[in-house]
C-alpha cells in the first residue's frame, strides 16, 4: 500500500475530492496546514507594525491506496489541483506497512 500526500491550495479541495471519488477512491484525511515553496507570503500591517508572513494556508490531503492504484490517484489529484500559478503544491508518495479497518478487522488491501 502507498500513502499519497498532497499539499494543495485550499480552494481546490472540492475538485480534488471529486476527482478521487470518480476514480473509485473512497476515503481521505484532510488537514489545514501552512507552508510555502516558491510562492511568496504576504505582509500584514497593524497600526504601522509590519509583519512578513511567509507561511500560507494550504490543505493537506492524505489517501492510502493499494500500490497498483498509486499512479491513478496521483494523476487525478494533479489534474484537479493544478491552476498553473505558483503555489499549486506538491504530492509525495510513501510506503504504508500495514492497514486495519477498525470496524471489521480487515487488513491491508481489503482495508484500503
Amino acid at each position: 500500500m502507498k500513502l499519497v500526500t498532497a499539499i494543495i491550495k485550499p480552494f481546490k479541495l472540492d475538485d480534488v475530492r471529486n476527482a478521487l471519488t470518480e476514480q473509485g477512491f473512497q476515503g481521505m484525511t484532510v488537514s489545514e496546514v501552512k507552508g510555502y515553496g516558491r510562492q511568496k507570503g504576504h505582509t500584514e500591517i497593524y497600526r504601522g507594525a509590519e509583519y512578513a508572513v511567509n507561511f500560507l494556508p494550504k490543505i493537506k490531503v492524505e489517501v492510502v491506496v493499494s500500490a497498483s492504484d498509486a499512479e491513478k490517484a496521483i494523476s487525478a489529484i494533479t489534474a484537479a489541483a493544478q491552476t498553473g500559478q505558483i503555489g499549486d503544491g506538491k504530492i509525495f508518495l510513501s510506503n504504508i506497512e500495514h492497514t486495519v479497518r477498525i470496524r471489521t478487522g480487515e487488513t491491508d488491501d481489503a482495508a484500503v
Partner: protein
Amino acid sequence: MKILTRFLKPAAAIGLALISTDAAMAADAPKLSAGDTAWMLTSTALVLMMTIPGVALFYGGMVRKKNVLATMMQSFAITCIGTIVWMVIGYSLSFGDGGGLNAYVGGLDKMFLSHFGKDTLNGTIPESVFITFQMTFAIITAALIMGAVADRMKFSAMIAFIVAWLIIVYAPVTHWVWGGGFLSGAGVLDFAGGTVVHINAGIAGLVACLMIGPRKGYGRENMAPANLVLSVTGASLLWVGWFGFNAGSAVAANGSAGMAMLVTQVATAVAALAWLVTEWIVLGKPSVLGIISGAVAGLVAITPASGYVDPMGALWIGIAAGVVCFIFAVGVKKIFGYDDSLDAFGIHGIGGMVGALLTGVFAVKSIGGTSGLLEGNAGQVIIQLEGIAATVVWSAVASFAILLVVKLLFGLRVEESVEVEGLDINLHGEVVQ
C-alpha cells in the same frame, strides 16, 4: 367611556396634588426629575458596557491568542475591584468635602457610601445613580491603562496598582475637575473626562510601559492581533456606550445631552475616516484596525468638548484626533521605540490632550456657557493647558511612585517563560481552545 371616567378622578387628584406641591416648594431646591433619572440610569449601564465587554473585547482581540483571556480578565477584574474601591473611599475622595484641602482632594465624609438615603438627591437625580455613574468612569479609566502593558503584567501587581491608583491618582484628579477642586475653580472645561479619564490613563500607561519594558521580541516577532473581529465588536460597543459617557455627563435629559450625543457622533465618524485616509495615504491600505482606532481617538478627543462645542467644532476635533493620534500611535512610537502595546498613550493620552486643548478653541458660549478662542476668548486655551499640565504631572509622578512600590512588593512583570508561553495558561490556568 366608563374606563376614562374611572381613571379621570384619581388622575385629576394626583395632578392637583403635584401642582400644589410644586407651588409649595422653594424655587431653588431641585427635585427628582424622572426624565433625568431614567437617562442617567441608562447612561450608567452604557458606560459599564464600555468596559465589559467594550474594552475587554477591544483590547482582547488585539493581543496574541495566548493572552486573550488574561487581557479580558483585566477589564473584568478591574470592574469588580474598582467597584469596591469606589464604594469604600474612591467616591468620597472624588466628590466629598475635603475641608481645608478641598482644592486638591475630597474628604472621608462619604466613605463606605453610608452618607445618604434611598431618596437623597444629587441635583435632579438620586445620589445612588450619580455614585454608580461616576463609578463606571473610574472603572473604565483603570481598565484603559492596561492597554499599555499588554502581554506582560503580573495579575497580582495589576490588582495592587489599580487599587492604589484609583485612590491616589484618579480620585484627586476627579475632584480637581468635577468635585469642586482647583481646576474647576480655574475654569477648566472638561465635560466628560478628557483629563480625568483619558489623559490620566494615557500618561499612567506611558509611565507603566516604560517601567515594565517592551514585550520580549518587540519589533522582531510577529505580534499580530489574534482576532480583530473581537476588536471591532469592542470598538462598536465603545462607540454606542460612549453616548452614555458624553451625553450622560450632562446629568440630565436635556438639550445639553442631545447636543453632546450629536457632536460625539460627528467627531467619532470624522476621526475614524481621518485616520483611515491618513493610513491609506501613508501605509497604502485602509485597515480595519485603523478605522476602529480612529473612531476611538475621536471618541476620546470629543469627550472633554462634548458639552461645549457645536457640530462644526466636533468635525475639526475629529480630524485633528484622527490624524494626530495616528501620527503618535504609528509614527512617534516607532521612532522612540516604547512599547505602548495597545496605544493607551497614543490614543487616550494624546487624544485626550488634543480634545482638551481644542475645547478651549471651539467652545461655544450658547452651548456650554463658555466661549473659546474662536469666539474671542483666547484665555480659555491657556486655562485648558493648565488642566492638561496638572493632570499630566500628577498622573506621571504619582503613577511612577505607585508602580515603584508595587514593583518592590510584587514585581511588575511576569517571568520570561510565562511571557513566552502565554499569560492565559500561566496566570489563569485556562486557554482559548
